[in-house]
């Protein structure tokens, strides 16, 4: 296959996966309907549709050369064709065959090899149509071979059908979204207006500065002049001053105007964006049925595997919920169903003994609740959760103290504690370690809650209440030096400023009092492995108290900047899970800021060696020195900064020569490290300018460059650089040595 064909095949396979899963889902929905035994007309339509689905899937499979799938579909097609033409009629054996075929299709679609399907399985599908077509009477033989594979011991939960990466959405919803998006268009003009006004303003300032400069020059000149012209000069000066004043007023007014416009734009934008987001969320709402359509088959399988006849009743499947929440609920609901059938429903004989119908009943009921919430109730009419067993296990695992009496409700709540997930009372899907504790964690993570109600001998009901849409994420923006991080608001208990003297040491760890309680204290910089930025020894500490259910710790940061809504973005597929960092968000101007993982931080904080806290370890003497690093490469810049900061210097950065020069003039620096190749003003020019500047001329300059020729080195010396380091042979220690020597 050529490369072009390979690429096309990949694209085609993607289309195929989506299409195939749709066909499969459709068949999985239609088969149970057909089984219900509808009237003749409905039956005919169902059979026709089923046939078409199998036929289309076969054609699709052929196109991507998936021969196994094609063959399975072929068998189904034949069977369905016979049904269509009335050569055979529906029977349990037929359904069995068809379900088996679907079972074989699911793993094929996911791409994994079919589960331990015994070799009799293919035989089961082929002879059955033949035998059945022959008149439908010889059902004994096909039936036994059909049920053969079923009797096999472990029947895995049907492999997950291919998660569809597309959604269906009503055109009405889509149109509404499009309209809103179009309205956002208008914001562009507002923003453009503000931008142009500011540009205008900036030009005004530039003009003014020019004149100011001229006046300054004249003034300096006149200082050297004769006293006789003094009055005239003062007049001239006064005029310049008044002009300047008028100008200032004009510019000020302009600024006010722009400010008002910008404020207005911001308000409209906020309104439009919120509206659009709400509608988008609505668009992402899916009816529960899209998840629940898997379940009838699951219950059939579980029922058969456990040998207990069980029927599944679903109510309220049309209710819609945020798709993301729905996706998260799949595993928990499957787990609860398993639980109900494995442990809840008793065996048929037992049930008859208790006067219950032989067939067990499991129900899933969905109800909307106040406050944009939805309740899912998974109930069974089995034996209920036995309190004595709960007590037993609880006592054994220390959750309940000996002899402690708890009411029924408290007991039932215990089943959610981890410790129960491995008990024989409740099902654990082996290999996944999924227990009710994890179900609860998932539910709570989505902003919901779960509880269980049970009556001995009558049944059990798990009630899950979920929000209908995912709430937006709020975070607290903090800074450490010039780095920023976001802490999830949900975990931020308190923000406070504490005086350093309130820090005390308890068992070799720093603590501070917060609201009358002693809370552990650590520096966030330490926890993250960053250099603690300089600060005055007696300035108060800015702390953020983070907590989860287990513990709370106060973290020292440089500043708390804001508390705002943030859009959570995942870190990308390569970084599946990073220590301490959960995700990232984009702030204004596209700046990326990491969102920290609080549970990780809390654990990491414990492991951080007590640094003797509030008192800084005695720093090297050059801690007072300020350095400027100029380089247009972001990586080089941060590299030099890291090296120098770790060595204890205070570092500011500049992105090119001009930026560096301006910063040097405005601030106070002890040394400059500069690249040579930079836009606007290169390193040589910068050095030259520095030497010319009266304030800066004594400043040590270290040039770090890729240029290695003799001429370049000489040039460096000529412009007055104190050191010339070549990047190609750069060595960290070398730089530090040079810097130390020059200071």
């Amino acid at each position, binding site marked *: 296959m050529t490369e072009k064909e390979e690429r096309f095949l990949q694209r085609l396979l993607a289309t195929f996966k989506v299409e195939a899963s749709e066909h499969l889902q459709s068949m999985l929905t239609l088969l149970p309907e057909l089984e219900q035994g509808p009237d003749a007309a409905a039956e005919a339509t169902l059979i026709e549709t089923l046939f078409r689905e199998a036929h289309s899937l076969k054609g699709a499979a052929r196109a991507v050369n998936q021969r196994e799938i094609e063959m399975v579909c072929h068998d189904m097609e034949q069977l369905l064709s016979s049904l269509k033409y009335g050569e055979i009629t529906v029977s349990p054996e037929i359904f069995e065959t068809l379900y088996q075929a679907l079972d074989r299709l699911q793993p094929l679609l996911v791409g994994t090899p079919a589960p331990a399907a015994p070799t009799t399985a293919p035989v089961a599908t082929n002879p059955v149509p033949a035998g059945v077509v022959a008149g439908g009477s010889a059902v004994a033989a096909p039936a036994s071979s059909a049920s053969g594979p079923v009797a096999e011991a472990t029947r895995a939960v049907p492999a997950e059908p291919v998660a569809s990466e597309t959604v269906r959405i009503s055109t009405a919803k889509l149109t509404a979204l499009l309209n809103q998006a179009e309205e956002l268009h208008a914001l562009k003009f507002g923003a453009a207006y503000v931008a142009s006004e500011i540009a205008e303003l900036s030009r005004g300032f530039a003009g003014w500065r020019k004149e100011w400069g001229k006046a300054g020059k004249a003034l300096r000149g006149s200082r050297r002049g004769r006293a006789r012209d003094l009055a005239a000069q003062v007049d001239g000066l006064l005029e310049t001053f008044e002009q300047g004043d008028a100008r200032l007023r004009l510019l000020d007014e302009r600024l006010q105007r722009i400010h008002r416009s910008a404020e207005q734009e911001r308000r409209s934008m906020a309104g439009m964006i919120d509206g659009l987001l709400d509608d988008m969320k609505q668009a992402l709402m899916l009816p529960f049925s899209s998840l629940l359509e898997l379940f009838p088959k699951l219950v059939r399988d579980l029922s058969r595997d456990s040998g207990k006849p069980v029927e599944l009743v679903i109510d309220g499947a049309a209710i819609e919920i945020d798709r993301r929440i729905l996706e998260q609920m799949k595993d928990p609901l499957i787990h609860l169903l398993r639980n109900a059938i494995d442990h809840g429903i008793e065996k048929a004989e037992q049930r008859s003994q208790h006067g219950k119908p032989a067939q067990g009943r499991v129900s899933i009921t969905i109800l909307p609740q106040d406050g944009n919430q939805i309740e899912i109730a998974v109930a069974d009419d089995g034996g209920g959760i036995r309190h004595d067993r709960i007590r037993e296990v609880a006592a054994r695992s220390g959750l309940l103290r000996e002899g402690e009496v708890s009411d029924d409700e408290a007991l039932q709540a215990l089943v959610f504690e981890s410790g129960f997930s491995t008990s024989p009372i409740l099902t654990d899907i082996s290999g996944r370690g999924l227990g009710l504790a994890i179900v609860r964690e998932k539910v709570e993570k989505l902003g919901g809650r779960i509880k269980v109600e049970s009556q001995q001998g009558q049944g059990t009901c798990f009630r899950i209440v979920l929000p209908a849409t995912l709430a937006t994420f709020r975070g607290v923006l903090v800074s450490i030096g010039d780095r920023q991080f976001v802490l999830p608001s949900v975990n931020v208990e308190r923000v406070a400023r504490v005086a350093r003297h309130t820090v005390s040491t308890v068992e070799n760890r720093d603590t501070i009092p917060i609201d009358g309680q002693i809370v552990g204290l650590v520096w966030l910089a330490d926890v993250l492995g960053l250099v603690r930025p300089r600060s005055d020894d007696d300035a108060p500490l800015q702390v953020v108290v983070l907590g989860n259910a287990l513990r709370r710790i106060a973290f020292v940061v440089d500043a708390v900047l804001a508390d705002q809504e943030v859009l959570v973005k995942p870190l990308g*597929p*390569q*970084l*599946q899970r990073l220590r301490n960092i959960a995700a*990232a968000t984009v702030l204004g101007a596209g700046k990326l800021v*990491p969102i920290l993982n609080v549970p990780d931080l809390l654990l990491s904080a414990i492991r951080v060696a007590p640094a003797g806290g509030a008192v800084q370890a005695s720093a090297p003497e050059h801690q007072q020195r300020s350095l400027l690093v100029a380089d247009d490469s972001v*990586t080089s810049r941060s590299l030099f900064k890291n090296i120098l900061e770790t060595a204890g210097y205070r570092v500011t950065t500049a992105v090119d020569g001009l930026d560096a020069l301006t910063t040097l003039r405005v601030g106070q620096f002890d040394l400059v490290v500069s690249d040579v190749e930079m836009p606007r003003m290169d390193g040589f020019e910068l050095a030259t300018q520095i030497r010319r500047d009266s304030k800066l001329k004594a400043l040590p300059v270290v040039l770090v460059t890729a240029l290695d020729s003799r001429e370049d080195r000489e040039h460096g010396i000529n412009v007055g650089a104190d050191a010339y380091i070549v990047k*190609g042979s750069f060595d960290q220690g070398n730089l530090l040595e040079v810097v130390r020597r020059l200071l």
Partner: protein
Amino acid sequence: MTASTPKRIDWTAVRERMAAAEATLRETLEPSSQAHQQVLQQRARQMAQVPASDAAGETLEVLQFVLAHEHYALASRFVDEVYPLRELTQLPGAPRFVLGIVNVRGRIVSVIDIKRFFDLPERGVSDLNKVIILRDGSMEFGVLADVIEGVNLLRMSEIQPPLPTLTGIRAEYLHGVTAQRLIVLDAQKLIRDPAMVINETVES
């Protein structure tokens, strides 16, 4: 029924007849059919000019770049785009070869330093200005480079197996080296390498 073979019809004969008919037509009809034919022929010629990928041995289209004075190449099939590096957000605590994350039109892409990933000796510092975003299926990340040289079509025959000591990179990650000392990395291997995926937890 015996196995069926696909039907073979004598297309050559048919074509002869049709060509004959065509010739007759052309003599008697206007240029319209002629022009039509010409267009078809021209199109066929254009199609024929596209370099056949299996002419003599296979070829590999690569993106060439410079990193720390070495020349490397990656199969362009896995290169999603090249992005100039402006702002890099560092991730404290991440492995050394993960330099940080960048924002590519709203999507977050992690950026790695190949030299550090392969534990190559770091000689000097270089201006890593470009991010080559690699993608294979759902895995995506960026690789920093100093200079992008461009796209080139290599013949597989030019790529020799590497001498172990020459590049310092383990052979499994390389397609090989060319005579011009271009180190051809196996992009797919790199992208799918489990060592590339970071999955850490904090021990309690």
